[in-house]
């Protein structure tokens, strides 16, 4: 069984303090999105990170059953993805990077093109599907949503392009014999655990396992000279030119206000505080249920 995981490297806007947002917003206004994110370190997309770890755990579980599993990971982007690909190589993934610029583009052009793809899900999905074919993936594993600009439609569109079924909101994946998987996912009416047979596309959502393991220095050194396979969009037979031309330009960026009103419950003892919480804030709601 061969599993390919598509991932995206995104700016970690969560790490930006309020004071820095003004700078990011001003840079977005003046120079465009790619330049605006130069102040921000990069991270794996959160759902992508979960997908990568689920793939590793599935490989390990299958190995315990004596079943071989090939792992590959791919991303669409510029050289700033290199440290992430190196990490994945050290963890045992074959790695592929697709330059969306389509030729000998500068790093800035590549970054700008990758940024533009944030708002071009159909073109992104075409590239993702092409990568899955290139890598010979039985299972295509994706995060259900990318970083900034993520529409959440790429898994569906990629599955359609590949002509494969798509399971979304995946929270866990377990082996079920040599050729099948037991997939847990959230449906409208609650959690579901079902058998799935490849080929398929699995879009990982709010999985309990959400963080990628860390390779040791020795594992990193062992793959230091292993090259990452690189393709352009054209190499994969995908024309993203029109999509890039039509991609909306980012004119401004601003943080989402996630602040919530808070009330400090007071009381001299824990019992008094609990009583104040219940009487003042919970009782009426519970009785209304």
């Amino acid at each position, binding site marked *: 069984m061969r599993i390919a995981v598509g991932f995206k490297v995104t700016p970690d806007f969560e790490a930006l303090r309020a004071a820095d947002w003004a700078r990011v917003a001003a840079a977005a206004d003046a120079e465009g999105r790619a330049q605006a994110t130069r102040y921000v370190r990069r991270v794996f997309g959160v759902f992508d990170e979960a997908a990568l770890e689920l793939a590793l755990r599935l490989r390990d579980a299958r190995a315990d059953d004596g079943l071989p599993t090939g792992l590959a990971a791919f991303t669409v982007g510029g050289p700033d993805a290199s440290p992430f690909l190196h990490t994945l190589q050290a963890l045992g993934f074959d790695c592929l990077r697709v330059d969306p610029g389509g030729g000998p583009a500068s790093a800035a052009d590549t970054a700008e093109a990758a940024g533009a793809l944030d708002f071009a899900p159909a073109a992104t999905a075409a590239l993702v599907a092409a990568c899955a074919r290139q890598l010979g993936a039985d299972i295509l594993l994706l995060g259900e949503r990318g970083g900034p600009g993520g529409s959440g439609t790429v898994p569906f569109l990629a599955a359609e392009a590949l002509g494969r079924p798509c399971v979304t909101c995946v929270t866990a994946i377990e082996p079920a014999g040599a050729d099948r998987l037991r997939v847990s996912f959230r449906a409208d009416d609650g959690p579901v655990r079902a058998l799935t047979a490849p080929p398929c596309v699995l879009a990982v959502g709010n999985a309990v396992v959400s*963080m990628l393991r860390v390779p040791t*220095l020795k594992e990193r050194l062992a793959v230091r000279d292993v090259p990452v396979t690189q393709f352009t969009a054209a190499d994969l037979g995908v024309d993203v030119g029109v999509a890039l031309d039509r991609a909306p330009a980012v004119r401004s960026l601003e943080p989402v206000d996630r602040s919530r009103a808070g009330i400090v419950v007071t009381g001299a003892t824990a019992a008094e505080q609990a009583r104040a919480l219940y009487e003042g804030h919970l009782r009426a709601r519970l009785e209304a249920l």
Partner: protein
Amino acid sequence: MSLSREAIVEGLRGILGPEAVVTDERVLVENSVDNFRKLQNIFDVHVMPVPAAIVTPTNAREVAAVLTWANEHGVNVIPKTGGTATEGGLESAVPDSVIMDGSAMNEIVKIDPYNMQATVQCGVPLQVLEDRVREHGLTTGHSPQSKPVAHLGGLVATRSIGQFSTLYGGIEDMVVGLEAVFPNGEICRIKNVPRRAAGPDIRHIVIGNEGALCFITEVTVKLFPYLPENNRFLGWTLMDMKTGFEVLREVMVGGYKPSVARVYDPGDAGLHFSHFAAPDDCVLLFMAEGAEGIAKATADGIQAIVDRHPECTQVPSEYIETWFNDLCWGPDKILAEDERIRQTRNVNRTTEISADWSSINDIYQAARQRIIDEIPDITMMGGHSSHSYINGTNMYFNYFFNVVDVGPEEETEKYYLPIISIIVEETLKRGGSIVHHHGMGKARAPWVRDEYGSSYYMLETLKTSFDPNGIMNKGTIFPI
């Protein structure tokens, strides 16, 4: 004959009343360790002796009463405030210890903008004091990474240092006076004066005592003008730490006082600066602050020094300012780190030492290489220098490892202590100090005689004189 657990609790309730004596088993278990054995709390696997109680006195007289009683009955007392210790100083090394938590003593006694000093009780969080003095256009100048959580008593007790130390100094340069209570119940107040030559500076018996000599109840610290509008940020990438140390030395010898002066090795730089530094790059950075003319002159002087090193490539100052704005660790980051450890079993630890300019690079190189070669499952081995002086600097080793094939309770023995041991050995070999600012705690106490050499006589005499019954924080600074 030692008191039973029940008798200890009863005795404490008799002194402070039942409300000030915590005996909830869950709380006690969680307080049996500090961040040195943080995996025990993260994974809820506890093997350390459980304290008998936590007491929360509200004034120096109550502290004195408890200490007098404990001294009489031979009960081990562990002083504590904010609880951010990283070296085992708050661990209960022996059964039925009493944790004396000063966090209820949390009054800001006086802010004196004319004499530029503030007096606070030991349980005032540094962030609270900093926010209050900012209302006066002032700052404490003290900004350890733990600022959102740490309290003034603990910061003084552990001889803390802040991220702006090159300008403002360590806590020992800020404390002008204090009040402390000794095991015999003596309440001592050291008055607040700019300087005096009336014998030895007895503040230094208390500053850094780590609860092994006395309990600090009140401190008075200096204040400084807060002028963030003048801050200037400078940053460079470079290829090796040796050059970075050399630039830091030239800046210090040149008489400049940037508030922040740091050089990161590639591993550590990768954690903070990967959006502009290549994987093999070191990062050198400075912040100049103060009055406009001083900040400008400092930044200009540093710029001229680094310009003499063409191997350094300047980066936009905004990169450094953005990093600076996200320096401190509040509860949100601590919780996020705990969750990451829980899922990945990848643990981050740090160990800091200091040495003169001649030795620091050799210590860094030797310790780093030995750790990579000798310790299994290392995922990152790096570090940075962050506190410089005219005669030398510190090295803050920052490292990660995967905890493999052992339980959380064995992590310190399999990984952390062997790493500390290597760093300590390489530091002592070259004449450096094995602790720059975290304190000895219990983690580095085994090397206390090697650290002090012939001056250990003086240190030991302090312990035997002030705490002859050995009831103050057993195992901290002085190994059991």
